[in-house]
């Protein structure tokens, strides 16, 4: 009798737990799922009241507009995506190079100013955001980089550097210095040691660093908005924001663009899930 009661209690707890779990699951995933569902609808279905939960004639037609400028009608999405890929790609590459160099310097070269500089980097990590819109707008303008992708690339790199340098510094410190010292005794130069030994040992960390930089650049909106005002230069976020100010918003087209914009993030995230989350939390947390 008693055993049975315990058993029922267990089942009840499991059921309640699973229900709560499913509610959280839906709460977290639904917005992206709904954007995807919307992207499969045609325009008449988008405007139906009440909304249809499952599209009647689902179609991937709209995803073509992302790739080709003549799919059905004039589409600017390919240009926006190309710009975004360029900006995020180049910014990521520069960030990984500069951040790992700086991190190596901080981790290994016993710089006297290492401690204060690292604190400065830690503080500067908090500021890139709309409170710098005004001065950066004029700085970029006076450098002649207004309405160019170069300006945005440099900016995104600078924004990603403080955090990635910190991440890299911790990463290099976790490598036992004995390996490098052995190479130096053998007559290897510092820089060669860095290139040939330290970097290959931190491949995963470098990928995580790169992913952080890519995520930051690919998602960045406010600065792209003020620095790119020619349509040819728009990145996806700016293009999206222009579409969203239109009078009749074609929500299925918007949804398609957002889902497509989310894809690289989701793929990268699926591949790197564990190390990425650990890296992010460690970066903000354990230091």
């Amino acid at each position: 009798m008693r055993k049975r009661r315990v058993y029922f209690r267990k089942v009840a707890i499991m059921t309640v737990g699973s229900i709560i779990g499913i509610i959280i699951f839906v709460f977290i995933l639904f917005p992206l799922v709904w954007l995807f569902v919307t992207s499969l609808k045609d325009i008449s279905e988008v405007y139906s009241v009440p909304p249809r939960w499952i599209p009647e004639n689902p179609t991937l037609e709209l995803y073509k507009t992302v790739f080709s400028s003549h799919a059905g009608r004039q589409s600017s999405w390919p240009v926006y995506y190309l710009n975004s890929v360029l900006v995020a790609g180049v910014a990521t590459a520069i960030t990984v190079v500069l951040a790992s160099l700086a991190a190596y310097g901080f981790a290994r070269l016993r710089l006297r100013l290492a401690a204060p500089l690292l604190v400065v980097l830690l503080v500067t990590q908090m500021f890139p955001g709309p409170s710098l819109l005004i001065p950066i707008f004029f700085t970029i303008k006076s450098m002649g980089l207004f309405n160019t992708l170069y300006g945005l690339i440099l900016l995104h790199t600078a924004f990603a550097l403080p955090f990635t340098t910190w991440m890299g510094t911790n990463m290099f410190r976790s490598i036992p210095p004995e390996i490098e010292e052995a190479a130096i005794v053998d007559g290897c130069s510092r820089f060669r040691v860095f290139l040939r030994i330290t970097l290959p040992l931190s491949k995963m960390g470098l990928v995580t660093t790169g992913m952080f930089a890519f995520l930051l650049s690919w998602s960045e909106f406010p600065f792209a908005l003020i620095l790119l005002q020619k349509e040819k230069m728009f990145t996806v976020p700016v293009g999206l924001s222009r579409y969203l100010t239109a009078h009749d918003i074609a929500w299925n087209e918007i949804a398609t663009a957002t889902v497509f914009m989310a894809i690289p993030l989701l793929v990268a995230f699926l591949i790197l899930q564990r190390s990425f989350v650990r890296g992010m939390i460690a970066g903000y947390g354990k230091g």
Partner: protein
Amino acid sequence: MVRMNIWSMNRYAYVLPALILVCIFVVYPIIYNTVLSLQDKDLLKPESGRYVGLETFRELFKDKITWVALRQTALWIVGASSMGLLLALGIGIFLSLDFPVNKVLRGVIVLPWILPPLIVATGWRWMLQPEMGIINDFLRRLHLVTGYPAWLSTKERALATLMFVMAWRLCPFLSLMIMATLRGVPTQLYESASIDGAGGFQQFRFISLPFLRFPLIVGALLTAIWTINEGFTIIYITTRGGPGESTEIMSTVLYKLNFLYFKTSKAAAMSLLNLLILFGLSISYLVFFRKYWLRGVEG
């Protein structure tokens, strides 16, 4: 012969390129912004741009919108952060338990956090449409609302709705922090407490909560910083500060001041206020968190 190259000549060569970029695009703009805020630069007046001391601030504080923005920024930070913390507390505690669903859930929970704020704002704006939106449809089916409440275009509701959207985005990070903390609490503590006759709630109150104090404070400070930095995108995409001025915060106002009304110095003054808040929060974060990052600094 000693091989000379720039890498061995100067060890600072490794760190300089990164530092220079950060100086040009983060440190210098903060200084330049301060300079601008002490001038009377107005892009429509060619002879403007002289040093006027605190005159611009005096004028800024004469505007009604400034006070509205200050009040709403405070509401925004406190409201969105505490909503995020509450959501995260619930989700984090649940995730720390051993339900089979949690294996999947711990993986997908980060989604709102890796999605760009722009997509978050776009998605919720679409879902919150009064008639075509899925949220109202869902709530109507459950008989929780009648009619079609306009979540984003009613003055009384818009800011609170956006706080919820922001909280949705923030809760994954906080949940994971809370989960990690709770799973780190030694189980013996709970065992001995239950031998002493402490119930579930008491165990939570006297064992878990003290452990959570630190991550909650740090989480609150970090979220506050993020609500300031990401608030602009969320609001710009959804309501642009409207209806009326009901969702204006400092960052949306400073954007309009410069890019719509061309009052550069006024915008810079507003930016400086925003920067001061960020600075205060960052310093508190660093002070609270010192034992962690100090280890990183000292190596």
